[in-house]
């Protein structure tokens, strides 16, 4: 929780008033100006990088039919990046608000271990053919469903009743993830090296894992979950004050927490099933977003976070594809940068 939140605690309670007329979202006019400058820079950067990814080093001359075919193919990847950036950014910001902790990321809560376990099991049981056939819409829906099921079971079990405790729930999620991790690493050990090679391509997040077949399910899910978060952003502002203050201001704390967590897990599950695990992308994006947008207001945080997510993802792909020509490890580079930022942040922070 930042001091900006504490200094203007009452403005968030007034739901009826419009956002633009208040001075509440930003501490000063300068902060507001800075925010919009950043947003325009980020939009410009996104457009530039998006266009760059589509048009850079396109072997066909601009405007020909071949150019458009290649551009269409590449724009799919750009679109997936936008989806993933949106999912990870919104989910992480909302998750950090609900848990009242800015160094957590929703991905550690077993989603990725579950994804890895599902992928590994399919290779382990059915061999390479199993993995190759395990790609259609059914597989996607199955994975999202299992991840959501686990998340909802955890919430229902540990966030309701007399002993509801958010942190116990988080830790249990992480531990279940660890248990699943040891099961999948055991199965991976028994795979032949060639099977393992194919599997390891799935183990790292990559936009090339995404298949347009998934979109009819993925996009509505993202729109619904993202919409829920967007429309609860005023409540999220209040939740970020802490449980007691939120209840005092008339927000049903537990119900809002569960709603936000379900939306978060829908976003993370969709993103993970689309492209694979990206543990620290969300953390990196959210941390940068707090720095850039000096506000507690989620209606301003969400767009900035999503834009930063897109810029980070597309810049990483652009650099790796066109400058280093080694596109296989983009997600790991992001993980490394995110992990380093994580270390710096925890060393710099004075409180949790």
């Amino acid at each position: 929780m930042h001091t900006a939140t504490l200094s203007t605690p009452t403005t968030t309670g007034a739901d009826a008033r419009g956002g633009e007329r208040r001075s509440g979202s930003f501490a000063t006019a300068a902060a507001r100006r800075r925010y919009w400058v950043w947003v325009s820079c980020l939009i410009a950067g996104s457009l530039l990088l998006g266009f760059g990814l589509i048009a850079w080093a396109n072997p066909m001359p601009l405007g020909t039919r071949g150019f458009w075919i290649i551009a269409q193919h590449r724009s799919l990847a750009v679109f997936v990046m936008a989806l993933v950036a949106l999912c990870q950014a919104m989910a992480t910001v909302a998750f950090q608000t609900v848990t009242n902790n800015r160094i957590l990321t929703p991905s550690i809560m077993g989603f990725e271990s579950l994804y890895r376990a599902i992928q590994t099991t399919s290779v382990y049981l059915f061999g390479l053919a199993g993995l190759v056939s395990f790609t259609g819409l059914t597989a996607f829906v199955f994975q999202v469903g299992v991840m959501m099921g686990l998340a909802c079971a955890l919430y229902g079990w540990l966030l309701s009743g007399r002993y509801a405790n958010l942190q116990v729930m988080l830790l249990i999620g992480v531990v279940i993830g660890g248990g699943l991790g040891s099961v999948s690493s055991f199965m991976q050990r028994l795979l032949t090296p060639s099977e393992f090679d194919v599997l390891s391509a799935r183990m790292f997040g990559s936009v090339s894992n995404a298949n347009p077949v998934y979109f009819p399910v993925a996009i509505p899910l993202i729109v619904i979950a993202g919409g829920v978060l967007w429309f609860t952003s005023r409540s999220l502002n209040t939740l970020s004050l802490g449980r007691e203050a939120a209840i005092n201001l008339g927000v049903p704390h537990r119900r809002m927490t569960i709603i936000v967590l379900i939306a978060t897990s829908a976003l993370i599950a969709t993103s993970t099933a689309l492209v694979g695990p990206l543990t620290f992308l969300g953390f990196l994006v959210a941390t940068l977003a707090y720095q850039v947008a000096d506000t507690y207001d989620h209606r301003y945080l969400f767009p900035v976070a999503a834009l930063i997510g897109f810029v980070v993802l597309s810049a990483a792909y652009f650099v790796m594809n066109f400058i280093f020509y080694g596109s296989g490890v983009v997600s790991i580079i992001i993980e490394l940068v995110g992990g380093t930022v994580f270390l710096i942040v925890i060393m710099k922070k004075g409180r949790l």
Partner: protein
Amino acid sequence: MTGLTTAGPRAPRARSRLFDPRVLLGVLVVAALLVASLFVGVYDVLGSADGWQMFLITRVPRTIALVLAGAAMAMSGLVMQLLTQNRFVEPTTTGTTEWAGLGLLATMIAFPNPPLLVRMVGAVLFAFLGTMVFFAFLRRVTLRSSLIVPLVGIMLGAVVGSISTFVALQTNTLQSLGVWFAGSFVGAIEGQYEVLWIVALVVIAIFLVADRLTVAGLGEDIATNVGLNYHRIVMLGTGLIAIATGVVTVVVGNLPFLGLIVPNIVSMLRGDDLRSNLPWVALLGIGVVTACDILARTIIMPFEVPVSLILGIVGAAVFIGLLLRQRRRGSR
């Protein structure tokens, strides 16, 4: 640690209970397990002509390795919990194991085909560094809840793990990395396991400085007040943990949750006096590892599964049980 202060009524009796006769009972049970470990296996050591040789080459070293690794990991978990004053901390929930693995990987790349000793030094150094990073972090922040500590530790472990994965992917050793990390006593045979004796020294050292560690566990202010050099004790404790974790990671692999569940069960049953608990922690650590290893050896005979798989599943279940129990008590 929350319980340390509440164990007051039991404290006066603690000195005299240092050699509790019930420890002997525990020793007997664990000894029975160890004997079972000596005779469980695919090779028939009693019937074959070279049975005695095989017994000396594989079974005896393996059982010694179980004793050393089990005791050392359980006790380092206990030391770590004392120093951080947090019950949910141990080498696997603070990233120490991941750091040790990264150190192992780094030495493998820096020196092609390094001798065991070099690998171990790398792992120990990295484990020490990583544990210090975590402790430094803990000292700098004010915590609102004890449960955040393991969460941050696991995140830290994930960061370090992703670095290892990156390095392993670049050097095409990803699958072997998984094999190194999975704790298994298969490699504990004559000529391979001997360096594990180093952790016996760690175990003895922990016994010797137990009182000082207990005082350090009361916090920096109290420890300094009663005349203890707090920072030296923290460095010493961290060094001991790093040596134990590093050596065990190199020789055996990762033994998840062992340092977490054993001290917690012991202090649930006996309260929080470190000195009289230490023998119990060591015994229970040995017992748990041995039982899991016997299970790992017999579950898909004639093959065996890595003991870390069994420990991971059993440990996760016990850990969740402990968390739920704490939740019910409503303490933070």
